[in-house]
C-alpha cells in the first residue's frame, strides 16, 4: 500500500475529474483502494501497480457514472453529471467544463486520461482493457461532441441545464 500512498493525490484527482464530484471521487477512490488491497495477490507484475490501480479506479468511477445515469429517470440534456455535479455547477458558465459534462461516461474517462493524465493512447487502452482503436474512436467522438458544444452560444446551453 506504500505504492498507493505515493500516488494517492493523482488517483483522487483522476476520480474527481472523471466524476466531477469530490465526495463521489473520495468514495470511488476508497472503493478502489479496498479492491486493490484485496486483489493484491492477483497482481503478478508488481512493477505495474500504477496502471493496474488506475484500471481498478477507472472501473469504480465508471460503475458510478453508469449508476448515476441509470438512476436518472428524467431525460436530461447531459448524459452524465445531472444536477449533482458540484464541481461542474461551480463552473457552469465555463464552456469547457459544461461541455465535459455532456460527454458519456466512456468518453469522459478517455478524455481525462488523455488530456489531464497525458497518457499515450496505448496506455489508456491498457488501463481500460480495450483495443487502442476503440480509445481512438472514443476520443474522436468525444472531441466532436465537445467541439459542437463549444461552438454553440453559451447562453442557450446554460438555460437548458437543470
Amino acid at each position, binding site marked *: 500500500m506504500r505504492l498507493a500512498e505515493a500516488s*494517492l493525490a493523482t488517483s483522487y484527482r483522476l476520480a474527481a475529474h472523471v466524476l466531477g464530484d469530490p465526495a463521489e471521487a473520495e*468514495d*470511488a477512490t476508497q*472503493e478502489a*483502494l479496498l479492491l486493490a488491497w*484485496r486483489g493484491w495477490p492477483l497482481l503478478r507484475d508488481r512493477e505495474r501497480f500504477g496502471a493496474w490501480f488506475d484500471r481498478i479506479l477507472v472501473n469504480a468511477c465508471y460503475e458510478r457514472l453508469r449508476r448515476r445515469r441509470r438512476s436518472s*429517470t428524467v431525460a436530461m440534456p447531459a448524459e452524465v453529471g445531472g444536477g449533482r455535479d458540484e464541481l461542474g455547477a461551480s463552473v457552469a458558465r465555463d464552456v469547457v467544463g459544461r461541455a465535459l459534462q455532456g460527454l458519456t461516461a466512456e468518453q469522459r474517462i478517455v478524455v481525462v486520461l488523455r488530456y489531464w493524465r497525458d497518457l499515450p493512447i496505448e496506455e489508456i487502452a491498457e488501463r481500460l482493457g480495450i483495443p487502442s482503436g476503440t480509445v481512438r474512436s*472514443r476520443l474522436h467522438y468525444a*472531441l466532436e461532441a465537445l467541439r459542437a458544444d463549444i461552438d454553440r452560444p453559451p447562453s442557450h446551453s446554460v438555460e437548458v441545464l437543470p
Partner: protein
Amino acid sequence: VTDERVEVELRAWFADRTDGDVPESLQRYLADLPSVEPRVDSVRRTGTARPFDRSPRDVIRVLVAAAVVVALAAGLGHGLSQRPGPSAGNVPSSPPSQGSMPSSVAPSTAVAPSPSPSVLAGPYRWDLVSSTGELSTYAVVDAIRLHDDTYLAMAFGQEVRALLSQDGRSWTIEPADPGLLRASTDHLSLVAGLAEGNDVLVAVGSSALFDISIGDARAWTSSDGVRWQAAEPSKGFTDAAMEAVVAGPDGFVAVGSDGFPGANTQLPGAHGAAAWTSMDGRSWTRAPAQASFADAIMTGVRRTPAGFVAWGQTLPFAHPGPPPPPIWTSADGIRWVRGRGISDAGGPGSPISSAMSIGDRLVAVGTRRLPDALGAGYAPGAWMSTDGGRTWSSAIVDEGPGMPPRSGGMFDLEVDKPGLIAVGRTEPPTGQEEPGSAAVWRSSDGGVTWVAVPDDPSFARAAMSRIVATGTGFIVFGAVDDPNAAANVALIWVAEKAP
C-alpha cells in the same frame, strides 16, 4: 473550432483545475487499510449492491459470502478482527451490521416471510417449504433431479454441503464430506454446478483462497451424492473457475471462466470464458482458448438436440458499445460459437441467466437493458433463436401495468408442458433500494411471449434463482431479497398444479 483547438482548451482547462486536495479522511482510510477485515467487507459490498444490479449469481454470492464469514468465525479465521473497518463509503445506508458479526448471518424469523397459506398463483399452488431453520442458512447453488426421481442439491452454509430430498419438501443436510471439503491451506471448496450421467454424479466449482479473491477450478465425483472424490489435478484448472456442468452423449461438459472471477460483482480476476470436457468426471481436458471466449464468462450450460448451449455475462468494461450477447452453442463442448443479434443483453448489468431448447428453437432468459428513454434501467428479458443459436431476437415479456415498467430479471427457466416457465425477481422502478419480489412468468407459445403469473403472498421480499421440474410441478430455490433485512435467508418453494 478545430479538434486541435479543443485539445488545447482541454489541456488548459485541466491545468487550471488545481483544486481537489486529497481529503484527510481518504488518507486515514489508506493508513487503516491493513486492519480492515476484507471478508466482512466483501459481504457488505455484495449485499448492498443496487437491487436491480442483482443477478442470480449475485443472490448466491451474497449468501456464499455471508456463509464464509460464518465459517471463518467458526474457527477457520483465527484472530478474526471484530472491529468494524472504516466504511467503504459508497453505501450511505448499509444494512445494520450485516456481516460484521456472525450472529447477524444466522436466520431470523423476523426477516423471513412466514410460510403463507397457499393461494393459487397461476395454475400452481405455491408452498414455501423452507424459510427458517438450519436449511435457510444454506444457499442452494445448484439442484438436479436424479434418475430415481429424488433430488440432490449443493448448498453453501458454513461450508459446502449436499442436500437430499425424496419429494422436494423435506430436505436432509448431509454431514460435511471430507472428500468435498478437502482443499489446500486457507482455501475453501466452492461448488457451483451439478450433473448426473453414466451412473456418476459430478460436481464442479473451485477452490478459493479464504477471501474468495483467487482460486482454481475443481471437480468432484460421487456415486451417492453424499461421499465425494476430487477429480485428477489438471493444468487446465489453474486460475479458473467452473460455474456449471451438464451430462452429454459422451461424458460431461463444464463451463466457467478463465481467471478466477473473485467475490465481487466486477469480476476483477476473470479474463474470458472457459470450457472443459470429461468422459468420466474424473479426468478433465480444457478446451483451447478461442475468439468466442473473449470478454465474457460462461455461467451455465444445458444440452440441446444439436449439442450444447451456454450462457453468461460480459465482463465489465469489455466493450464500448453493445457487446455480442453472451450466449454460445457447441456441437461437442469444445468448439463454441457466440450468438449475435441482441443489443439489449450482455454487458455487466444485463446477464443471460439461462437458456434451453424447445421444439426447433432456443430460448434464453435474463436481464435486459432498457432504452435510455425509459430511464436506462434493467428489466426482465427473454430472447429466442430459430437458427440454432447463431442469431437471436427479443421475445415479449409482460412487464405488468405502469410506466416505467418494473425492473428485475428472469433468472432460470424450465419446461412447463406444453410451454415454458421462468422465475426471477422484479422491483418497483423507483431506483431506490427497495425490497424485490419473486416473480414467475409462463409462455405457452414456445417462448415468444411471456405472461407474468399473479403474485403469491410468499413472493414478497424474495427472489427466485433456480427452478427444477418434478414431474407434477416444480421446486424453486431463492433467497430473501430485502436491502434492509438483517440476514440472508435461503428459501425453497414447491409449486404443484392446483387440482
